């Protein structure tokens, strides 16, 4: 019962945020210089055609009314049409081809980062102050200190140009070939994963060390439970709660990395789309992409909240 309440409240909160966020996006785009009518109709448009276009699309209405019109369209799945980037192509069609690639690369990177950080963070915490700890924390700091786009080029230099194990450019969408996607997506995923793994490993280590000091861990030892049992059920079980929480906060950095990495490796995803849209001043595309990114972050936060609530009975009961 308590959990359902919690879920309802969180979903309500996420919906409210996305509503407010979409308004913010709309407002920013509205403030951006340039007349959308002119952008669509081109330089040759006459005063009459522009006026007609503005009237038809409600561009003379107050911002709020325009926002409501746009929001209604978005709710019906119509994100408008691209004005510069892809002719008058519907943006929703663009997203359908782009979004899976971004999600694939993002999840791929996330999984790599999780695997590395779980191993490194746990090892460092278990051997606190020992060589393993020093090496792991040292590498982690290096990881968070390097720009991921630079690391991509280092990876390209070694694994693509020198060893030729992976392609240096281009990406096979998972829809075409899953194996191809894993192969061609490995370097970009690794580039995104490296700084993330550094951040995650540090958080996990700190959380484990902190939890190990709790009295319930001493209490568990006093019952004579074996060390691995205590570590798994007492230390690790409670340490992952803050770990998952902080993990959720990292999505906004993770997606920031995706934007650049996609351009480096020429992946046709959301990141390259929004950047290309920005250069082409294709506002509807940028607007739609920003909204999608917002939705992704909020969904991930929602999932993280739910996972935390399941892990930590104190949050809901």
């Amino acid at each position, binding site marked *: 019962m308590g959990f359902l309440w919690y879920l309802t409240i969180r979903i309500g909160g996420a919906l409210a945020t996305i509503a407010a966020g979409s308004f913010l996006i709309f407002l920013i785009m509205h403030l951006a210089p340039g007349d959308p009518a002119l952008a669509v109709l081109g330089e040759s448009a006459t005063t009459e055609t522009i006026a007609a276009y503005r009237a038809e699309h409600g561009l003379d209405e107050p911002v709020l009314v325009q926002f409501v019109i746009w929001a209604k369209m978005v709710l019906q799945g119509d994100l408008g049409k691209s004005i510069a980037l892809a002719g008058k192509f519907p943006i929703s069609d663009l997203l359908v081809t782009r979004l899976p690639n971004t999600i694939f690369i993002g999840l791929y990177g996330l999984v790599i980062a999780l695997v590395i950080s779980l191993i490194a963070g746990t090892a460092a915490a278990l051997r606190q102050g020992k060589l393993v700890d020093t090496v792991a924390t040292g590498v982690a700091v290096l990881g968070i200190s390097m720009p991921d786009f630079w690391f991509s080029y280092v990876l390209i230099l070694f694994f693509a140009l020198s060893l030729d194990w992976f392609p240096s450019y281009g990406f096979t969408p998972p829809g075409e070939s899953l194996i191809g996607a894993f192969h061609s997506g490995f370097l970009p995923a690794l580039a995104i994963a490296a700084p993330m793994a550094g951040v995650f490993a540090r958080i996990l280590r700190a959380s484990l060390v902190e939890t190990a*000091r*709790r*009295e*319930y861990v*001493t*209490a*568990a*030892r*006093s*019952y*004579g*439970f*074996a*060390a691995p049992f205590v570590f798994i*059920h*007492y230390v690790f*079980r*409670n340490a992952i*709660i803050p770990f998952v929480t902080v993990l959720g906060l990292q999505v906004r950095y993770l997606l920031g990395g995706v934007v650049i990495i996609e351009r480096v490796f020429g992946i046709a995803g959301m990141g390259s789309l929004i950047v290309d849209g920005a250069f082409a001043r294709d506002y509807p595309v940028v607007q739609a992409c920003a909204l999608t990114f917002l939705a992704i972050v909020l969904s991930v936060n929602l999932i993280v909240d739910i996972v935390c609530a399941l*892990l*930590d*009975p*104190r949050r809901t*009961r």
Partner: protein
Amino acid sequence: MSDVTLTLRNLSTGFKMGGRVMNVVREVDLEVRKGEMLGLIGESGSGKTVTGMSILRLLPENAVTEADTLDFLGIDLLKLSTEQFREMRGTRLAMVFQDPVGAFNPAKKISWHLKQVFERAGTKSPAHAERAKNWRASAIKLLADVGIPHGANVMRQYPHQLSGGMLQRTLIALVLVFEPELIVADEPTTNLDNIVERQILRLFRDLQKRLDCAFLYVTHDMTIAAVLCDRIAVMYAGSIVEIGPTKQIFADPKHPYTQGLLASALALDTKTERLQEIPGELPSPGKLPPGCLFEPRCKFAKPECRAKEPAMVDVGGERHVRCVLYGHG
């Protein structure tokens, strides 16, 4: 002296701090006997908790414990490997903690805690195995024993949903699964309210009588020691300064520190005009005074007190005092 359960000789415990060891417990000699409740009294920082934790090897890794003897029913605890010692913990040596809320795994229900302990017990003997099979029924019975009549309901709860008193009872139930021969209780009622505190104290006394085990009760509260303990040992700045039967110590405290503590504790029990003070402050473990540690605050201090720390003096009637007023040992 076959009834002695635990013998400590010359126990010292310190913590490694930047390359050197800072001792917080020094040269402690103690005996805890079967069927007795020994009170270990001291203020914060006196080393009483560390002493208790040293016996069960529950201190963090930077702790260093040394002793001439650490004997538990003929077993030399110093010689046991980590794994052998772990086998003893919980089964024969047990501990009750100060903060009942903090002593439970917050992510697990009460039933989980009980189940784990019963399952561990199940591997020890056929009788225990039988209980482990019906662990739920056994747990409810055990909870009833510690004064929780509706055990089935309590088992469904998470720790944060229960009151401190209820959790402390449950914690005691966990310890009782094995009927240990030595129980160390570290200020187990400090975080409880007066009325609940009395209930738990009574529970401890009844338990100790029923199990007939050795019981080391660590506390800062003289009045608790008075109602609960058969003998008390008073610690000051890491050393035991006085030890003896409770009644005699309360009637006639020997060490000036014990006298001061008792004077202020007992004076409050009656309407008094003015409390007797112990002047000064506790020494910090980094800067201990030379000689007797209590000398800077002692009204009987003499020049010889500063020369060296006095030895324990046997003053008869099972009483020992670390003070030159009673000779030099």
